[in-house]
């Protein structure tokens, strides 16, 4: 043990041939007090690790080739989606209780085709240019929607007026420092209210390789990955914004894609080049939403009954747990 630790460990600048140096078995790189030497030893250790890993990979590959057909199938890499903590509220497609709930909830009249969606889009007080333009573009994307300026009106007073004029949905885009950063989506005849945090808003002119303006045809709707009960109800909220019968002539599709609790909205025009290939071209604005809270009645921050609130301390503890 003595002879090994005699010559100074971390001899990078000194004589070569570090292989001759032997370290005591309980030695670890982190115990060296000198930062430069410690850093050097650490780099060397890292290089060694990498070499070993590479050698291992090569060996495995050779074995695989040697086995040929009999090789075991390639292991599936772990992804966050694979490792997702199983959520007990995941909806089973054949679940009767869910089907019954959905037949009797606030969206039933929409899905039974009794109501035609009519949407009111507005902003918070004094919107800046970007938000105004975003609202206009959103209005072109969602058919049968109207944009009104807020002018300091209280939401609680707007809502009865909207209901009187037959609006089915209310969208409020909240603005902060000249960019839109929040979205409140409220289904009107006392439907649920969802509050989202909005990010990465791109207006039409900021999207690269975009097509022309969206036409007035009713687009199709794609809702991806809404698996849990909560996700299901949010998905239905989004679906209720668009009229029931899409006009396929328009070849436009609005997509709400949920991935790890982030809902990405895109608006595309598609064309089928053949039966196995489709080309899509992005028009229209894009943004991402993250659900913050879901409230049972219409917008009421003080006395509302919250069905779901994002509580950071409790819900953000695991990286593999998602709620939508």
């Amino acid at each position, binding site marked *: 043990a003595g002879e090994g630790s005699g010559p100074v460990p971390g001899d990078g600048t000194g004589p070569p041939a570090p292989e001759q140096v032997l370290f005591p078995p309980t030695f670890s790189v982190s115990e060296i007090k000198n930062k430069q030497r410690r850093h050097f030893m650490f780099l060397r250790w890292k290089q060694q690790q990498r070499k070993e890993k590479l050698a291992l990979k090569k060996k495995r590959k050779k074995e695989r080739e040697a086995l040929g057909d009999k090789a075991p199938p390639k292991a599936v890499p772990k992804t966050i989606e694979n490792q997702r903590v199983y959520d007990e509220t995941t909806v089973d497609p054949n679940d009767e209780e869910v089907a019954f709930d959905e037949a009797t909830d606030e969206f039933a009249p929409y899905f039974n085709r009794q109501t035609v969606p009519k949407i009111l889009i507005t902003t918070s*007080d004094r919107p800046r240019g970007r938000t105004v333009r975003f609202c206009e573009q959103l209005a072109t994307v969602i058919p049968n929607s109207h944009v009104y300026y807020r002018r*300091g009106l209280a939401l609680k007073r707007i809502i009865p007026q909207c209901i009187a004029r037959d609006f089915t949905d209310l969208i409020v885009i909240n603005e902060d420092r000249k960019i839109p950063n929040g979205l409140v989506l409220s289904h009107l005849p006392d439907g649920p209210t969802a509050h989202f945090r909005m990010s990465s808003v791109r207006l039409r002119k900021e999207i690269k390789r975009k097509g022309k303006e969206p036409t007035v045809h009713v687009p199709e709707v794609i809702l991806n990955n809404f698996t849990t009960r909560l996700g299901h109800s949010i998905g239905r909220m989004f679906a209720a914004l668009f009229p029931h019968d899409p006009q396929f*002539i328009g*070849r436009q599709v609005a997509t709400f894609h949920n991935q790890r609790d*982030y809902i*990405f909205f895109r608006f595309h025009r598609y*064309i*089928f080049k053949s*039966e196995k290939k489709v080309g*899509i071209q992005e028009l229209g604005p894009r943004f991402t939403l993250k659900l913050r809270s879901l409230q049972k009645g219409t917008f009421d921050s003080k006395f509302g009954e919250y069905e779901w609130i994002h509580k950071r301390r409790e819900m953000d503890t695991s990286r593999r747990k998602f709620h939508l």
Partner: protein
Amino acid sequence: SPQVVWSMLGNRQFCSYKMTTKTQNFCRNEYNLTGLCNRSSCPLANSQYATVREEKGRCYLYMKTIERAAFPRRLWERVLLSKNYEKALEEIDENLIYWPRFIRHKCKQRFTKITQYLIRIRKLTLKRQRKLVPLRRKIERRENRREEKALIAAQLDNAIEKELLERLKQDTYGDIYNFPIHAFDKALQQQDAESESESDAEREEEDDDEDVDKREFVEAEDSELSDFEDMDKLETSSEEEQEEEEEVEKKVSHSKSKGKTPLKGPARRKRPYIEIEYEEETEPSTKTKAA
């Protein structure tokens, strides 16, 4: 005496209430009438002084006289002013009768200002208050990072394309798009029903012979459609949409034979790139050679 006080505090020595700035001197004393540090506005250097101050929305008139200079506890006399603006002004006048004009005037001015800002406070509290929620930097950064990663994991374009193709397969688009695979399925179904199949086969073989040239031409066009410029041209009017559908249908009729011979289909599709020039009847022979 007040003159001595002023000559000490005002000019030469230190006054803890005095705040100097580049252009002006301010007085931080709570009983000061104007807020500036002047000979006439200093509550310490004037033995007869008055101010108007408000507490919890009510205005009071504070007065200081020489008689009470020896009793600091009773120095400032306080009078509640009425809520009515005019009445309060009269009260100020009443209480400060025979006082110097400057103090009376300034008191009334101060009282006016105070009432104005009280009115504004009351109006604002009735309107909606904007609630400022502080952002937590670490959390914002974490969420942005996670959003980026989720975006990459989502592979949106692929997902949308897959979904659209699924819908095409499940026939949600009905008769708008007629593609070979549909023709093939239909042909398969027809083949199951025995009687119809043979006649169909004959018909389609005839088509096969007649439309050799056109088929090759059509396939060359197909690759051009992938340009987005064409898509834009197609979008502009419904008439052009119909034209496009007609073209598609033509392709369908020509390529129905492909449905019959699926193995040859993909192999033949590669042809145009090599054999665009050859559009003559010598084709069948070249087919066999290549095969």
